[in-house]
């Protein structure tokens, strides 16, 4: 019989829209007050509210490892932030039995001017370790990170791979009774990721409670006995990882429901479906396969020459390829009512990892938003780096600023009645002439 480590009862978190994005300026407050006093301006408008999380209840037994899955914006991160006490819930209550450690990011509190040694102490203290605890684990941390030679160098001189390794090493040696982990395992090369996952496994074997938020279904399946699936701020499924993950993948396969609420966006994106080169709905692709993104939209009124952009971002959020009518000029003439647009990336050579697709639309001017940019789908490229003859420290490659390759892609818009447009990067005559 195990004791309950986390008991969440009817937890809810409400945001006033705008509260999260922007802050208030005293100047505006004073100006508005003055206007109201003079009887001019309108009364204070109530900002719309959004429940990021509502009626979420669950218990986690001590020593259990629980995965939290769901698409971005579903409320997973909000839940984790409430559990980590970073923000308070609007309603409900949570009881945590045990010292809590949260890993929402690696390298929290790292200061570039300080040496590796100083940063280990500082970051460890911020994460909740005591001085003696850090002293005891110091050698182990440095060895784990494999940065012994540079430990007295300011971390601003570290390579990004070294920086990440040291940052993770500190975090990995945190030994709380309840560990909250956000997808920090997505960083580093495959070998280092394996090391990290191994470390997480050790933590749960030692009888600690772990809550793990991730998009990496493989990791969730192998690390967590139980999973909770959150969608639109509610618990949709809670049970054995294998069945919850399978249900979730099934739901993802039938297309991501981007939004159910008919917002007042002029060009409302309702659903997005991913298909491979054979036209099958999937979220697993081979490198070099076509990736086709079907966008079901509703245009409120007649929208002349809207701009669409679609971007594929890797697991740490960097754009790896983009299709944009703002760059290629192939806007549809006009969109009206519901319809379906398709963007096909033609055989992109992507490295095996998890990717997210972002998209958004803008008016003909290229500036006015028709629908806000958001993550609309996820997919992964199957296989390992080794399958492609890649190895070694790829973390540095991911973190470096490298130019986006422009893979050929095609647009299919219905209203134009025109055949699909294929966009390929070609050198223009002017560029050729310049080189000669």
């Amino acid at each position, binding site marked *: 019989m*195990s*004791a309950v480590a986390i008991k969440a009862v009817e937890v809810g978190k409400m*945001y006033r829209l705008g*509260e*999260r994005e922007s*802050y*208030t*300026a*005293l*100047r505006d*407050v004073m100006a508005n007050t003055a206007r109201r006093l003079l009887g001019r301006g309108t009364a204070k408008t109530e900002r719309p509210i959004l429940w990021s999380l509502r009626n979420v209840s669950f218990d986690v037994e*001590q*020593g259990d490892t629980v995965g939290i899955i769901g698409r971005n914006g579903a409320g997973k991160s909000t839940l984790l*932030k*409430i*559990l*980590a*006490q*970073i*923000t*308070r*819930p*609007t*309603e*409900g*209550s*949570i*009881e*945590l*039995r*045990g*010292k*809590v450690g*949260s890993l*929402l*990011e690696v390298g*929290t*509190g790292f*200061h570039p*001017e*300080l040496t590796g040694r*100083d940063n280990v*102490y*500082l970051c460890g*203290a*911020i*994460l*909740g*370790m*005591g*001085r*003696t*605890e850090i002293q*005891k684990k110091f050698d182990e941390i440095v060895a784990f990170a494999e940065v012994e030679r540079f430990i007295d160098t300011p971390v601003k001189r570290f390579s990004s791979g070294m920086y990440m390794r040291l940052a993770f090493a500190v975090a990995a040696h945190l*030994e*709380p*009774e309840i560990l909250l982990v956000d997808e920090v395992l997505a960083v580093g090369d495959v070998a280092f990721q394996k090391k990290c996952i191994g470390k997480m496994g050790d933590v749960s074997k*030692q*009888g600690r409670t772990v809550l793990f938020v991730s998009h990496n279904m493989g990791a969730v399946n192998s690390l967590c006995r139980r999973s909770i699936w959150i969608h639109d701020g509610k618990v949709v499924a809670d049970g054995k990882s294998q069945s919850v993950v399978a249900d979730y993948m099934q739901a993802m396969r039938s297309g991501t429901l981007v939004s159910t609420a008919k917002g007042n966006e002029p060009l409302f994106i309702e659903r997005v479906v991913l298909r491979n080169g054979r036209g099958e709905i999937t979220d697993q692709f081979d490198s070099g396969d076509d990736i086709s993104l079907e966008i079901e939209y509703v245009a409120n009124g007649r929208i002349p020459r809207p701009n669409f952009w679609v971007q594929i971002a890797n697991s740490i959020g960097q754009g790896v390829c983009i299709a944009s009518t703002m760059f290629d000029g192939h806007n549809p003439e006009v969109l009206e009512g519901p319809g379906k647009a398709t963007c096909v990336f033609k055989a992109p050579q992507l490295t095996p990892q998890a990717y997210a697709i972002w998209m958004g639309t803008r008016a003909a001017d290229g500036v006015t938003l028709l629908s806000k940019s958001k993550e609309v789908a996820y997919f992964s490229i199957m296989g390992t780096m080794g399958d492609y003859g890649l190895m070694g420290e790829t973390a540095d490659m991911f973190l470096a600023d490298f130019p986006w390759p422009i893979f050929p892609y095609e647009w299919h818009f219905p209203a134009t009645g025109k055949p699909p447009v294929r966009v390929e990067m070609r050198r223009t005559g002017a560029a050729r002439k310049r080189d000669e």
Partner: protein
Amino acid sequence: MPSGGVAGAAPGASVAPAPSPHVVHIRPTAGWWDFRLGEVWASRELLWFLVWKDVKVRYKETVIGAAWAVLQPVFTMIVFTIFFGRLAKLPSSGLPYPVFYMAALLPWSYFASALSGCTSAIVENQRIITKVYFPRLLLPLSVVIAGLVDLAIALVVMVPLLIYYGITPTAGLILLPVFVLMATLAALAVGLWLTTLNVMYRDVRYVVPFIIQFLMFASPVIYSASSVPARWQWLYGLNPMVGVIEGFRWAITGAGRPPGLIMIPSFVAVCACLIFGLVFFSRIDGSVADRI
């Protein structure tokens, strides 16, 4: 299993899944006073780390390092001596101008830089705040404490000045820590208001330099507190820096009378400002991460 760390964890809790004595309740923010001051005490080790980082980074980032703490008050003292002393010939309680101004500029520089540091303490650390929890009060607290290192370094400059002018400190010097403590509390009290306001309204930081400048004229930095008419002394004393600055002058040089009754309104003002500052701060404590 957990070793050391936050108080509350039982010493030697090494048997595996034993129910932990460390229980945290998470609830919506409620009422006026929703603060866990015990938590601040429990995180004192982190506080020292933050202070140590502040000091280390500050002295690492500047070429002249620790000299910075000294140069600022010294140059201000020279400017004041030339303009307010030699040219305007303001009364200086019989003290040489450099000593008169330097003794006031030490606590004043500390107070002023602590205020501007506190203003940005929360907003500047938003990356940490949105990723990990610790009592947010530690941030303004660490700024106020780290400033004391500068003050200590700057105090050393006082020694050659006193020797040059042949002034021997009196026994009043042992009371100096009391005035330092008072300055620390005053900086924290006002700093809490500024840091909270800056989280709520981001343009407050543009106003802070004006507030600091205004406060300097409301404090006996360039003039002596005795120039203020006696019937206004009680009101004047509400500015806690009045007692602190007069106290510094008296403790270091032995000139004038020790600040007596004027310390009472100062002390009351600091306490009130500190308590209401904590209440005000606690209003945003639970939602800081959503606001920045």
